[in-house]
């Protein structure tokens, strides 16, 4: 009997080992950095090359050369305008995003879990999400004047519907079996939400937050372009350049907005998302 049990233990250990397979060696860090970082860098350089090519063929397009844009950037940087604008825009964008997330998350949970609320408000939320947030700028100006409050208002109107929708779809994607298991384990109401529903909804919710940030940033830029609020922002850099017909200045503004948008994603959202997905085995490699 003892030998049978021991034999079984060995059989089981063998099965486990076979099923799991050999552990693959991790690639060296510089190889991973190279394969991850090289393609986008090459793509950027290629685009710069095409840009230079278009300008140097004397094509009748009113386009500044890359070096003109570089000089303009240098000039603005030396004046401290770029740093100030990036700082102000990031401040308004991030604060507006955080307020949006704080408002939208409970709203999303409520709409996802209460059927009547959902049927009543979901179409409106989806509609608001597809509404270009620039349409809120005139209303914001009439309500709040040319102030930071207008910027926040536009950011909130842009980001909240998107985060609400992300939260709802995150919760919708939770497998019903997880909730049944939670029930069997004795979790109800808030306990069920805290230990099962919310952690299970996290990947979808993070996707919603990421999209919410994109909406915050775009809305803010639209608002800054139209409603210069006194504190210099990136949108205003573009507007100022347009006023003095400085094409390089306009392009500096656009590129700065693009770079900040990418940087926030690379520094914050992408690593967070990767971490969450990897822990759950939803991401290979």
């Amino acid at each position: 009997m003892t030998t049978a049990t021991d034999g079984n233990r060995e059989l089981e250990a063998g099965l486990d080992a076979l099923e799991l397979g050999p552990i693959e060696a991790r690639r060296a860090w510089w190889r991973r950095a190279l394969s991850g970082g090289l393609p986008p860098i090459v793509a950027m350089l290629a685009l710069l090359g095409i840009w230079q090519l278009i300008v140097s063929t004397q094509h009748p397009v009113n386009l500044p050369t890359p070096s003109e844009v570089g000089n303009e950037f240098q000039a603005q940087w030396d004046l401290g305008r770029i740093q100030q604008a990036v700082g102000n825009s990031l401040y308004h964008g991030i604060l507006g995003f955080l307020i949006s997330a704080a408002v939208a998350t409970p709203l999303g949970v409520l709409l996802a879990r209460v059927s009547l609320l959902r049927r009543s408000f979901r179409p409106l939320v989806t509609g608001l999400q597809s509404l270009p947030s620039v349409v809120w700028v005139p209303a914001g100006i009439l309500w709040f004047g040319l102030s930071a409050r207008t910027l926040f208002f536009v950011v909130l109107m842009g980001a909240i519907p998107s985060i609400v929708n992300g939260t709802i779809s995150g919760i919708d994607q939770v497998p019903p079996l997880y909730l049944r298991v939670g029930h069997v384990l004795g979790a109800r109401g808030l306990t069920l939400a805290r230990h099962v529903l919310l952690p299970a909804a996290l990947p979808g919710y993070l996707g919603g937050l990421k999209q919410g940030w994109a909406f915050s940033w775009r809305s803010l830029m639209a608002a800054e372009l139209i409603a210069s609020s006194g504190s210099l922002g990136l949108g205003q850099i573009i507007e100022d350049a347009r006023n003095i017909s400085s094409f390089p200045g306009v392009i500096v503004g656009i590129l700065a907005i693009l770079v900040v948008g990418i940087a926030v994603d690379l520094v914050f959202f992408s690593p967070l998302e990767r971490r969450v997905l990897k822990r759950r085995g939803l991401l290979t490699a």
Partner: protein
Amino acid sequence: MTVLDSLRRRHVPDTAEVDSAAVVVDGLTKRFGRGPLILDDISLRVAPGEFLCILGASGCGKSTLLNLIAGLEQPTAGRVAVPGHKPSLMFQEPALYPWLTAAENIGLALKLRGVDKGERKDQIERLLSLVRLDGAGAKRPHELSGGMRQRVALARALAQDSQVLLMDEPFAALDAITRDVLHDELTRIREEVGATVLFVTHNVREAVRLGDRVVLLSSRPGRVANTFAVGIPQPRRIESPEVAALSVEITEHLRTEIRRHAQAPTR
């Protein structure tokens, strides 16, 4: 005992009778809304420590029966009594939470049962050891094989410390070798913890390999068609002639049940 007494006994089991059984199902009937009858007047008594297999083809309402016993559904008529703790339930999918490690999955069951944090660690170790996964506690579900996941799910179910374990085709998705090993494991663990098990399956040999008793359900609606006592001593082998002989007999009955539906008009 008078006739009246015996009649009363049939319909209202007295408390002594309820207390001596681990699970009592009495005249259980279920339909969803205005839909067709799923379960029709099912009555079962499961003795403490008994391993009861519920066998049936598709549409016999096996899963609905377990859900009713687990309290996840409410009966249309009849009643279910499970004295003591709420029963624990295991599904065909391990349904481990992917954001938790194996140990944390077991720990959550302990936490929701109200076990102190200090005591939880010891109990997790003990349960992992019981399902022979010592040292695998830090792994996440996706890092485990199907058989290992189902063992973690078993440990989580045992963490609820209920005397009754309900299992809904828990090994149906596993390969044959792993399933055989888990049959042996389940037999061993059941003897160690002395739990009452209700095991639903559509696999006749599995039912005979594991059960002390096999209840055959008919389909649409589910009714108790037959009950078989399995007198073969444990440990049994699924390939043994004794298991095979009884399986042949039960399979005949099961086929007869299924054939009856060939005559019935399909809806």
